[in-house]
Protein backbone atom coordinates (compact mmCIF):
# COMPACT_ATOMS: atom_id res chain seq x y z
CA UNK A 1 0.00 0.00 0.00
CA UNK A 2 1.13 3.48 -0.78
CA UNK A 3 2.43 5.41 2.22
CA UNK A 4 0.69 8.35 0.67
CA UNK A 5 -2.61 7.01 1.94
CA UNK A 6 -1.37 7.43 5.47
CA UNK A 7 -0.47 11.04 4.75
CA UNK A 8 -3.59 12.17 2.94
CA UNK A 9 -5.84 11.62 5.91
CA UNK A 10 -9.44 12.64 6.29
CA UNK A 11 -8.55 15.74 8.33
CA UNK A 12 -6.13 17.02 5.73
CA UNK A 13 -8.52 16.41 2.84
CA UNK A 14 -11.37 18.01 4.76
CA UNK A 15 -9.41 21.21 5.39
CA UNK A 16 -8.18 21.18 1.78
CA UNK A 17 -11.64 20.87 0.29
CA UNK A 18 -13.41 23.04 2.89
CA UNK A 19 -10.84 25.53 4.10
CA UNK A 20 -11.73 27.46 7.29
CA UNK A 21 -11.04 31.18 7.70
CA UNK A 22 -10.06 31.56 4.07
CA UNK A 23 -9.76 34.96 2.43
CA UNK A 24 -7.95 38.08 3.61
CA UNK A 25 -9.62 41.09 5.18
CA UNK A 26 -9.01 44.71 4.39
CA UNK A 27 -8.25 45.66 7.98
CA UNK A 28 -5.11 47.48 9.14
CA UNK A 29 -5.23 45.97 12.60
CA UNK A 30 -4.20 42.60 11.16
CA UNK A 31 -0.54 41.63 10.75
CA UNK A 32 0.18 40.11 7.38
CA UNK A 33 2.93 37.67 6.41
CA UNK A 34 3.54 36.24 2.99
CA UNK A 35 5.73 33.22 2.26
CA UNK A 36 6.54 31.67 -1.05
CA UNK A 37 8.26 28.45 -1.96
CA UNK A 38 9.78 29.46 -5.25
CA UNK A 39 10.66 25.94 -6.32
CA UNK A 40 7.10 24.63 -6.41
CA UNK A 41 5.02 27.77 -6.45
CA UNK A 42 3.38 27.38 -3.03
CA UNK A 43 2.35 30.84 -1.98
CA UNK A 44 0.62 31.57 1.33
CA UNK A 45 -0.38 34.74 3.14
CA UNK A 46 -1.37 34.59 6.81
CA UNK A 47 -3.23 37.52 8.34
CA UNK A 48 -3.52 37.68 12.09
CA UNK A 49 -5.35 39.88 14.57
CA UNK A 50 -3.65 39.99 17.95
CA UNK A 51 -5.21 41.91 20.83
CA UNK A 52 -4.37 41.96 24.53
CA UNK A 53 -2.05 38.99 24.22
CA UNK A 54 -4.64 36.90 22.42
CA UNK A 55 -4.87 35.62 18.86
CA UNK A 56 -8.31 36.96 18.01
CA UNK A 57 -8.44 35.96 14.37
CA UNK A 58 -6.38 34.26 11.66
CA UNK A 59 -7.12 34.50 7.95
CA UNK A 60 -5.24 32.88 5.08
CA UNK A 61 -5.07 33.03 1.33
CA UNK A 62 -2.85 31.51 -1.29
CA UNK A 63 -2.24 28.69 -3.66
CA UNK A 64 -0.34 25.48 -3.40
CA UNK A 65 -0.62 21.76 -2.93
CA UNK A 66 -3.11 20.10 -0.61
CA UNK A 67 -0.60 19.78 2.23
CA UNK A 68 0.29 23.46 2.05
CA UNK A 69 -3.25 24.84 1.72
CA UNK A 70 -4.85 22.52 4.27
CA UNK A 71 -2.16 23.27 6.85
CA UNK A 72 -3.02 26.97 6.65
CA UNK A 73 -6.65 26.13 7.37
CA UNK A 74 -5.75 23.79 10.24
CA UNK A 75 -3.48 26.44 11.70
CA UNK A 76 -6.16 29.09 11.56
CA UNK A 77 -8.79 27.01 13.31
CA UNK A 78 -6.38 25.59 15.86
CA UNK A 79 -4.73 28.81 17.00
CA UNK A 80 -7.69 31.18 16.90
CA UNK A 81 -8.61 32.08 20.46
CA UNK A 82 -5.32 30.96 21.98
CA UNK A 83 -3.08 33.32 23.91
CA UNK A 84 0.04 34.44 22.11
CA UNK A 85 2.14 32.26 24.45
CA UNK A 86 0.03 29.18 23.77
CA UNK A 87 0.08 29.83 20.03
CA UNK A 88 3.83 30.15 20.17
CA UNK A 89 4.20 26.83 21.96
CA UNK A 90 1.88 25.01 19.58
CA UNK A 91 3.71 26.46 16.57
CA UNK A 92 7.07 25.45 17.93
CA UNK A 93 5.83 22.00 18.76
CA UNK A 94 4.25 21.52 15.32
CA UNK A 95 7.33 22.65 13.41
CA UNK A 96 9.53 20.38 15.51
CA UNK A 97 7.16 17.48 14.91
CA UNK A 98 7.20 17.74 11.12
CA UNK A 99 10.95 18.26 11.08
CA UNK A 100 11.39 15.08 13.14
CA UNK A 101 12.83 17.00 16.09
CA UNK A 102 11.87 16.20 19.67
CA UNK A 103 8.64 18.02 20.50
CA UNK A 104 6.56 18.52 23.60
CA UNK A 105 3.88 15.85 23.32
CA UNK A 106 1.95 17.31 26.23
CA UNK A 107 0.92 20.17 23.97
CA UNK A 108 -2.27 19.20 22.20
CA UNK A 109 -1.79 19.68 18.46
CA UNK A 110 -5.32 18.41 17.76
CA UNK A 111 -5.96 18.28 13.97
CA UNK A 112 -2.40 19.38 13.26
CA UNK A 113 -1.21 15.96 14.49
CA UNK A 114 -2.37 14.62 11.13
CA UNK A 115 0.72 16.15 9.58
CA UNK A 116 3.08 13.85 11.48
CA UNK A 117 2.93 11.59 8.42
CA UNK A 118 4.80 14.21 6.44
CA UNK A 119 8.04 13.15 8.13
CA UNK A 120 8.01 10.13 5.83
CA UNK A 121 8.08 12.51 2.85
CA UNK A 122 11.10 14.76 3.42
CA UNK A 123 10.44 16.56 0.12
CA UNK A 124 7.05 17.66 1.44
CA UNK A 125 8.07 19.01 4.86
CA UNK A 126 8.38 22.45 3.31
CA UNK A 127 4.79 22.26 2.06
CA UNK A 128 3.57 21.52 5.59
CA UNK A 129 5.63 24.27 7.16
CA UNK A 130 5.07 27.35 4.98
CA UNK A 131 1.85 28.55 6.63
CA UNK A 132 3.23 27.92 10.11
CA UNK A 133 6.46 29.74 9.31
CA UNK A 134 4.44 32.69 8.13
CA UNK A 135 2.51 32.61 11.40
CA UNK A 136 5.74 32.30 13.40
CA UNK A 137 6.99 35.45 11.66
CA UNK A 138 3.71 37.13 12.56
CA UNK A 139 4.21 36.41 16.24
CA UNK A 140 7.71 37.83 16.01
CA UNK A 141 6.38 40.99 14.39
CA UNK A 142 3.72 41.25 17.08
CA UNK A 143 6.23 40.92 19.91
CA UNK A 144 8.43 43.58 18.31
CA UNK A 145 5.42 45.87 18.13
CA UNK A 146 4.67 45.35 21.81
CA UNK A 147 8.29 46.03 22.68
CA UNK A 148 8.22 49.43 21.03
Amino acid sequence: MHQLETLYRQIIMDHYKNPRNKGLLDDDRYIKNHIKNPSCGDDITIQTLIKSGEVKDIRHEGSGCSICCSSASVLSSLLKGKTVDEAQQVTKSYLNMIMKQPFDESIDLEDALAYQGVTKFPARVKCASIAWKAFEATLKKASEKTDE
Partner: protein
Amino acid sequence: MQNRKKDFPILNKQSLVYLDTAASSLTPNAVIDKLNEYYNEYPVNVHRGVYKLSYRATEAYQDARQTIADFISASFEEVIFTRGASSALNLVALSYGEKVLKSGDEVIVSELEHHSHVLPWQQLAKRKGAKLIYVPLSKAGRITVDAFKQVLTDRTKIVALTYVSNVMGYETPIKEITRLAHQKNAIVSVDAAQAAPHRAIDVNDLDCDFLAFSAHKMFGPTGVGVLYGKKRLLDIMDPLEFGGDMNDNVDKFDGDWKDTPYKFETGTPPIAEAIGFAEAVRYIKKIGFKAIIAHENTLRQKAVDALSNIKGVTIYNPTAETGIINFNLDDVHPHDVVSFFDEDHIALRAGHHCAQLLIKWLNVPATLRASFYVYNDEADIDTFIDSVKRARTFFSDIGF
Protein backbone atom coordinates in the same frame (compact mmCIF):
# COMPACT_ATOMS: atom_id res chain seq x y z
CA MET B 1 18.47 1.50 -29.28
CA GLN B 2 20.39 -1.05 -27.26
CA ASN B 3 19.79 -1.17 -23.54
CA ARG B 4 21.85 1.67 -22.11
CA LYS B 5 20.81 1.19 -18.49
CA LYS B 6 23.91 -0.85 -17.75
CA ASP B 7 26.05 2.20 -18.52
CA PHE B 8 24.55 4.12 -15.57
CA PRO B 9 25.54 2.92 -12.10
CA ILE B 10 22.59 4.60 -10.34
CA LEU B 11 20.17 2.55 -12.45
CA ASN B 12 21.83 -0.67 -11.34
CA LYS B 13 21.81 0.24 -7.67
CA GLN B 14 18.14 0.85 -7.07
CA SER B 15 14.75 0.65 -8.63
CA LEU B 16 14.42 3.95 -10.47
CA VAL B 17 12.50 5.29 -13.42
CA TYR B 18 14.32 8.52 -14.08
CA LEU B 19 12.25 11.04 -16.02
CA ASP B 20 13.98 14.26 -15.02
CA THR B 21 16.73 14.55 -17.61
CA ALA B 22 15.58 18.06 -18.51
CA ALA B 23 16.81 19.08 -15.04
CA SER B 24 19.92 16.89 -14.96
CA SER B 25 20.87 13.75 -16.83
CA LEU B 26 22.31 10.70 -15.14
CA THR B 27 26.04 10.11 -15.37
CA PRO B 28 27.43 7.11 -17.27
CA ASN B 29 30.40 5.03 -16.11
CA ALA B 30 32.55 6.39 -18.92
CA VAL B 31 32.29 9.92 -17.48
CA ILE B 32 32.70 8.84 -13.86
CA ASP B 33 35.78 6.84 -14.86
CA LYS B 34 37.19 9.87 -16.65
CA LEU B 35 36.75 12.01 -13.54
CA ASN B 36 38.45 9.32 -11.48
CA GLU B 37 41.27 9.11 -14.00
CA TYR B 38 41.97 12.81 -13.52
CA TYR B 39 41.88 12.60 -9.73
CA ASN B 40 43.90 9.36 -9.66
CA GLU B 41 46.50 10.03 -12.29
CA TYR B 42 47.10 13.75 -12.85
CA PRO B 43 45.14 15.72 -10.23
CA VAL B 44 47.04 18.98 -10.64
CA ASN B 45 46.53 22.48 -11.94
CA VAL B 46 46.60 23.56 -15.57
CA HIS B 47 48.56 26.24 -17.44
CA ARG B 48 50.86 27.04 -14.52
CA GLY B 49 53.11 24.13 -13.66
CA VAL B 50 56.13 23.39 -15.77
CA TYR B 51 56.26 19.75 -14.80
CA LYS B 52 55.07 16.60 -16.51
CA LEU B 53 51.87 16.09 -14.54
CA SER B 54 50.73 19.65 -15.04
CA TYR B 55 51.52 19.35 -18.71
CA ARG B 56 49.29 16.29 -18.90
CA ALA B 57 46.44 18.07 -17.08
CA THR B 58 46.80 21.09 -19.35
CA GLU B 59 46.71 18.90 -22.44
CA ALA B 60 43.62 17.05 -21.24
CA TYR B 61 41.91 20.34 -20.44
CA GLN B 62 42.76 21.78 -23.85
CA ASP B 63 41.71 18.56 -25.58
CA ALA B 64 38.39 18.88 -23.81
CA ARG B 65 37.92 22.36 -25.23
CA GLN B 66 38.75 21.11 -28.72
CA THR B 67 36.36 18.16 -28.38
CA ILE B 68 33.54 20.49 -27.42
CA ALA B 69 34.44 22.98 -30.15
CA ASP B 70 34.29 20.16 -32.70
CA PHE B 71 30.96 19.01 -31.25
CA ILE B 72 29.32 22.28 -32.30
CA SER B 73 31.62 23.03 -35.27
CA ALA B 74 33.21 26.00 -33.50
CA SER B 75 36.87 26.82 -33.25
CA PHE B 76 38.98 26.34 -30.14
CA GLU B 77 39.17 29.99 -29.08
CA GLU B 78 35.41 30.42 -29.40
CA VAL B 79 34.67 27.98 -26.58
CA ILE B 80 34.73 29.38 -23.05
CA PHE B 81 34.29 27.12 -20.06
CA THR B 82 31.85 28.53 -17.51
CA ARG B 83 30.08 27.23 -14.41
CA GLY B 84 27.16 26.23 -16.62
CA ALA B 85 24.72 27.59 -19.16
CA SER B 86 23.38 30.13 -16.65
CA SER B 87 26.70 31.80 -16.10
CA ALA B 88 27.44 31.60 -19.83
CA LEU B 89 24.21 33.47 -20.65
CA ASN B 90 24.94 35.97 -17.89
CA LEU B 91 28.36 36.57 -19.39
CA VAL B 92 26.77 37.55 -22.70
CA ALA B 93 24.43 40.04 -21.04
CA LEU B 94 26.87 41.42 -18.50
CA SER B 95 29.84 41.77 -20.83
CA TYR B 96 28.60 42.08 -24.42
CA GLY B 97 25.20 43.54 -23.53
CA GLU B 98 26.72 45.94 -21.03
CA LYS B 99 29.03 47.22 -23.74
CA VAL B 100 26.62 47.68 -26.64
CA LEU B 101 23.15 48.23 -25.22
CA LYS B 102 21.91 51.82 -25.10
CA SER B 103 18.81 53.60 -23.98
CA GLY B 104 15.98 53.03 -26.44
CA ASP B 105 17.46 49.82 -27.85
CA GLU B 106 15.28 46.75 -27.92
CA VAL B 107 16.02 43.26 -26.65
CA ILE B 108 13.80 40.46 -27.88
CA VAL B 109 13.11 37.60 -25.47
CA SER B 110 10.25 35.15 -24.98
CA GLU B 111 8.03 33.72 -22.28
CA LEU B 112 9.55 30.33 -23.05
CA GLU B 113 12.89 31.41 -21.61
CA HIS B 114 14.48 29.81 -18.61
CA HIS B 115 15.02 32.43 -15.89
CA SER B 116 18.71 32.45 -16.75
CA HIS B 117 18.03 33.80 -20.22
CA VAL B 118 15.46 36.43 -19.37
CA LEU B 119 16.55 37.88 -16.02
CA PRO B 120 20.05 38.96 -17.15
CA TRP B 121 18.52 40.88 -20.07
CA GLN B 122 15.60 42.18 -18.03
CA GLN B 123 17.92 43.62 -15.41
CA LEU B 124 20.34 45.01 -17.98
CA ALA B 125 17.53 46.61 -19.96
CA LYS B 126 16.23 48.20 -16.76
CA ARG B 127 19.65 49.63 -15.99
CA LYS B 128 20.21 50.91 -19.51
CA GLY B 129 16.75 52.18 -20.26
CA ALA B 130 16.44 49.65 -23.06
CA LYS B 131 13.18 47.94 -23.91
CA LEU B 132 12.45 44.29 -23.34
CA ILE B 133 10.19 42.91 -26.09
CA TYR B 134 8.43 39.55 -25.86
CA VAL B 135 7.79 37.49 -28.97
CA PRO B 136 4.08 36.67 -28.85
CA LEU B 137 3.79 32.89 -28.49
CA SER B 138 1.51 30.91 -30.77
CA LYS B 139 -1.60 29.26 -29.39
CA ALA B 140 0.41 26.12 -28.72
CA GLY B 141 3.10 28.18 -27.00
CA ARG B 142 5.66 28.23 -29.79
CA ILE B 143 8.01 30.90 -31.08
CA THR B 144 7.29 31.20 -34.79
CA VAL B 145 9.17 33.07 -37.50
CA ASP B 146 6.05 35.09 -38.28
CA ALA B 147 5.62 36.20 -34.69
CA PHE B 148 9.30 37.06 -34.54
CA LYS B 149 8.97 39.24 -37.64
CA GLN B 150 6.26 41.22 -35.85
CA VAL B 151 8.60 42.29 -33.06
CA LEU B 152 11.86 42.68 -34.99
CA THR B 153 12.59 46.35 -35.65
CA ASP B 154 15.46 48.65 -36.55
CA ARG B 155 15.90 49.23 -32.82
CA THR B 156 16.43 45.51 -32.06
CA LYS B 157 19.98 45.07 -30.77
CA ILE B 158 19.78 41.69 -29.08
CA VAL B 159 17.70 38.60 -29.67
CA ALA B 160 17.86 36.19 -26.74
CA LEU B 161 15.88 33.00 -27.32
CA THR B 162 15.83 29.40 -26.27
CA TYR B 163 16.65 26.73 -28.84
CA VAL B 164 14.50 24.11 -27.14
CA SER B 165 12.05 25.10 -24.40
CA ASN B 166 12.83 23.37 -21.11
CA VAL B 167 9.12 23.04 -20.33
CA MET B 168 7.37 22.68 -23.69
CA GLY B 169 10.13 20.87 -25.56
CA TYR B 170 9.49 22.94 -28.68
CA GLU B 171 12.30 23.68 -31.06
CA THR B 172 12.69 27.34 -32.01
CA PRO B 173 13.47 28.10 -35.70
CA ILE B 174 16.77 29.68 -34.63
CA LYS B 175 18.42 29.56 -38.04
CA GLU B 176 15.72 31.58 -39.78
CA ILE B 177 15.36 33.93 -36.80
CA THR B 178 19.11 34.54 -36.83
CA ARG B 179 19.06 35.31 -40.54
CA LEU B 180 16.30 37.88 -40.02
CA ALA B 181 17.96 39.36 -36.93
CA HIS B 182 21.24 39.81 -38.78
CA GLN B 183 19.45 41.78 -41.50
CA LYS B 184 18.75 44.32 -38.75
CA ASN B 185 22.29 44.03 -37.38
CA ALA B 186 21.03 42.50 -34.17
CA ILE B 187 23.00 39.74 -32.49
CA VAL B 188 21.46 36.45 -31.42
CA SER B 189 22.09 34.69 -28.10
CA VAL B 190 20.85 31.10 -27.95
CA ASP B 191 20.12 29.08 -24.83
CA ALA B 192 20.92 25.57 -26.06
CA ALA B 193 20.85 23.84 -22.67
CA GLN B 194 17.94 21.61 -23.76
CA ALA B 195 19.08 21.37 -27.37
CA ALA B 196 22.70 20.28 -27.11
CA PRO B 197 21.88 16.95 -25.39
CA HIS B 198 19.32 16.02 -28.03
CA ARG B 199 20.18 17.72 -31.34
CA ALA B 200 23.30 18.10 -33.48
CA ILE B 201 24.37 21.74 -33.33
CA ASP B 202 26.42 23.47 -35.98
CA VAL B 203 27.04 27.07 -34.98
CA ASN B 204 28.22 27.98 -38.47
CA ASP B 205 25.05 26.70 -40.00
CA LEU B 206 22.88 28.44 -37.39
CA ASP B 207 25.09 31.52 -37.64
CA CYS B 208 24.02 32.55 -34.12
CA ASP B 209 26.38 34.86 -32.27
CA PHE B 210 26.35 33.25 -28.83
CA LEU B 211 25.21 29.82 -27.71
CA ALA B 212 25.31 28.24 -24.26
CA PHE B 213 24.83 24.81 -22.76
CA SER B 214 25.60 22.80 -19.62
CA ALA B 215 27.42 19.50 -19.18
CA HIS B 216 25.11 18.09 -16.53
CA LYS B 217 22.14 17.84 -18.87
CA MET B 218 24.13 15.73 -21.35
CA PHE B 219 25.80 13.00 -19.25
CA GLY B 220 28.52 15.33 -17.98
CA PRO B 221 29.47 16.50 -14.51
CA THR B 222 27.86 19.40 -12.67
CA GLY B 223 29.65 22.73 -12.42
CA VAL B 224 30.71 23.19 -16.02
CA GLY B 225 29.16 24.57 -19.15
CA VAL B 226 30.13 26.35 -22.28
CA LEU B 227 29.69 29.69 -23.90
CA TYR B 228 30.26 29.70 -27.62
CA GLY B 229 30.76 33.16 -29.08
CA LYS B 230 31.89 34.44 -32.45
CA LYS B 231 35.53 35.36 -32.14
CA ARG B 232 35.11 38.96 -33.31
CA LEU B 233 32.46 39.50 -30.60
CA LEU B 234 34.45 37.79 -27.86
CA ASP B 235 37.42 39.97 -28.85
CA ILE B 236 35.59 43.20 -28.06
CA MET B 237 34.14 41.90 -24.79
CA ASP B 238 35.67 42.69 -21.42
CA PRO B 239 36.27 40.04 -18.80
CA LEU B 240 33.83 40.03 -15.90
CA GLU B 241 36.25 38.56 -13.42
CA PHE B 242 39.87 39.37 -12.90
CA GLY B 243 42.57 37.32 -11.27
CA GLY B 244 45.06 34.60 -11.96
CA ASP B 245 45.66 33.13 -15.38
CA MET B 246 43.55 35.59 -17.37
CA ASN B 247 46.18 38.33 -17.55
CA ASP B 248 49.21 38.93 -19.73
CA ASN B 249 51.00 41.65 -17.86
CA VAL B 250 50.19 43.06 -14.46
CA ASP B 251 51.46 46.48 -13.43
CA LYS B 252 50.73 48.45 -10.31
CA PHE B 253 48.02 50.58 -11.88
CA ASP B 254 46.98 48.63 -14.97
CA GLY B 255 47.07 45.26 -16.58
CA ASP B 256 46.17 43.59 -19.83
CA TRP B 257 44.41 40.38 -20.61
CA LYS B 258 45.05 37.27 -22.58
CA ASP B 259 43.08 36.58 -25.73
CA THR B 260 39.80 34.73 -25.71
CA PRO B 261 38.97 32.20 -24.32
CA TYR B 262 41.48 32.66 -21.48
CA LYS B 263 40.53 36.21 -20.56
CA PHE B 264 37.13 34.88 -19.44
CA GLU B 265 38.53 32.02 -17.37
CA THR B 266 40.23 33.39 -14.30
CA GLY B 267 41.19 31.19 -11.38
CA THR B 268 41.58 27.44 -11.47
CA PRO B 269 39.02 26.27 -14.01
CA PRO B 270 36.74 23.24 -13.53
CA ILE B 271 39.48 20.94 -14.85
CA ALA B 272 38.06 17.53 -14.00
CA GLU B 273 34.60 18.70 -15.01
CA ALA B 274 35.74 19.95 -18.42
CA ILE B 275 37.58 16.69 -19.07
CA GLY B 276 34.49 14.76 -17.96
CA PHE B 277 32.34 16.99 -20.18
CA ALA B 278 34.42 16.02 -23.22
CA GLU B 279 33.97 12.36 -22.33
CA ALA B 280 30.22 12.94 -22.16
CA VAL B 281 30.36 14.41 -25.65
CA ARG B 282 32.22 11.33 -26.85
CA TYR B 283 29.53 9.16 -25.25
CA ILE B 284 26.85 11.08 -27.17
CA LYS B 285 28.78 10.83 -30.43
CA LYS B 286 29.16 7.10 -29.98
CA ILE B 287 25.39 6.69 -29.76
CA GLY B 288 24.73 9.31 -32.43
CA PHE B 289 22.01 11.94 -32.57
CA LYS B 290 20.03 10.02 -35.16
CA ALA B 291 19.56 7.16 -32.72
CA ILE B 292 18.96 9.52 -29.78
CA ILE B 293 16.24 11.45 -31.61
CA ALA B 294 14.54 8.30 -32.88
CA HIS B 295 14.58 6.75 -29.41
CA GLU B 296 13.21 9.84 -27.67
CA ASN B 297 10.49 10.21 -30.29
CA THR B 298 9.39 6.61 -29.80
CA LEU B 299 9.20 7.01 -26.02
CA ARG B 300 7.49 10.38 -26.16
CA GLN B 301 4.89 9.23 -28.66
CA LYS B 302 4.13 6.12 -26.63
CA ALA B 303 3.73 8.19 -23.47
CA VAL B 304 1.66 10.93 -25.13
CA ASP B 305 -0.67 8.35 -26.71
CA ALA B 306 -1.20 6.60 -23.40
CA LEU B 307 -1.61 9.81 -21.37
CA SER B 308 -4.14 11.15 -23.87
CA ASN B 309 -6.32 8.15 -23.11
CA ILE B 310 -6.41 8.78 -19.36
CA LYS B 311 -9.37 10.89 -18.31
CA GLY B 312 -8.45 13.87 -16.14
CA VAL B 313 -4.95 14.36 -17.52
CA THR B 314 -4.04 17.49 -19.47
CA ILE B 315 -0.98 17.57 -21.74
CA TYR B 316 0.19 21.09 -22.56
CA ASN B 317 2.61 20.19 -25.36
CA PRO B 318 1.27 17.16 -27.25
CA THR B 319 3.07 18.19 -30.44
CA ALA B 320 6.55 18.80 -29.01
CA GLU B 321 9.42 17.50 -31.09
CA THR B 322 11.73 16.65 -28.21
CA GLY B 323 11.37 14.22 -25.32
CA ILE B 324 9.60 16.48 -22.84
CA ILE B 325 6.00 16.07 -21.69
CA ASN B 326 4.47 18.92 -19.74
CA PHE B 327 1.23 17.87 -18.07
CA ASN B 328 -1.05 17.92 -15.05
CA LEU B 329 -3.63 15.77 -13.35
CA ASP B 330 -6.71 17.97 -13.43
CA ASP B 331 -7.59 19.52 -10.04
CA VAL B 332 -4.55 18.00 -8.32
CA HIS B 333 -1.57 20.16 -7.51
CA PRO B 334 1.59 18.75 -9.16
CA HIS B 335 3.33 18.60 -5.80
CA ASP B 336 0.69 16.21 -4.55
CA VAL B 337 1.09 14.04 -7.63
CA VAL B 338 4.85 13.97 -7.59
CA SER B 339 4.89 12.39 -4.13
CA PHE B 340 2.77 9.59 -5.55
CA PHE B 341 5.30 9.04 -8.35
CA ASP B 342 8.11 9.18 -5.83
CA GLU B 343 6.52 6.34 -3.89
CA ASP B 344 6.57 4.36 -7.15
CA HIS B 345 10.30 5.17 -7.59
CA ILE B 346 9.60 7.48 -10.51
CA ALA B 347 11.56 10.72 -10.47
CA LEU B 348 10.11 13.63 -12.35
CA ARG B 349 9.77 17.32 -11.84
CA ALA B 350 6.90 19.33 -10.37
CA GLY B 351 6.91 23.09 -10.20
CA HIS B 352 7.58 25.95 -12.56
CA HIS B 353 10.85 24.59 -13.94
CA CYS B 354 12.65 27.94 -13.62
CA ALA B 355 10.29 29.28 -16.27
CA GLN B 356 7.69 31.22 -14.31
CA LEU B 357 6.77 33.34 -17.31
CA LEU B 358 5.62 30.27 -19.20
CA ILE B 359 3.73 28.88 -16.20
CA LYS B 360 1.93 32.22 -15.98
CA TRP B 361 1.28 32.10 -19.73
CA LEU B 362 -0.25 28.63 -19.28
CA ASN B 363 -2.26 30.10 -16.40
CA VAL B 364 -1.65 27.20 -14.02
CA PRO B 365 0.04 27.21 -10.58
CA ALA B 366 2.65 24.67 -11.67
CA THR B 367 3.06 21.62 -13.89
CA LEU B 368 4.55 18.15 -14.01
CA ARG B 369 7.35 17.50 -16.44
CA ALA B 370 8.55 14.11 -17.66
CA SER B 371 11.63 14.06 -19.85
CA PHE B 372 13.36 11.17 -21.57
CA TYR B 373 16.87 10.22 -22.59
CA VAL B 374 18.80 7.22 -23.84
CA TYR B 375 18.64 5.30 -20.55
CA ASN B 376 14.84 5.21 -20.58
CA ASP B 377 13.09 2.35 -22.27
CA GLU B 378 9.55 1.32 -23.10
CA ALA B 379 9.24 -0.52 -19.79
CA ASP B 380 9.88 2.85 -18.05
CA ILE B 381 6.99 4.34 -19.99
CA ASP B 382 4.75 1.44 -18.97
CA THR B 383 5.67 1.93 -15.31
CA PHE B 384 5.10 5.68 -15.62
CA ILE B 385 1.71 5.32 -17.32
CA ASP B 386 0.58 2.72 -14.81
CA SER B 387 1.53 5.09 -12.01
CA VAL B 388 -0.33 7.99 -13.62
CA LYS B 389 -3.45 5.83 -13.85
CA ARG B 390 -3.24 4.73 -10.23
CA ALA B 391 -2.48 8.29 -9.11
CA ARG B 392 -5.52 9.54 -11.01
CA THR B 393 -7.71 6.99 -9.24
CA PHE B 394 -6.11 7.61 -5.85
CA PHE B 395 -6.59 11.37 -5.91
CA SER B 396 -10.11 11.12 -7.31
CA ASP B 397 -11.03 8.58 -4.62
CA ILE B 398 -9.83 10.69 -1.71
CA GLY B 399 -11.79 13.67 -2.94
CA PHE B 400 -9.57 15.86 -5.13
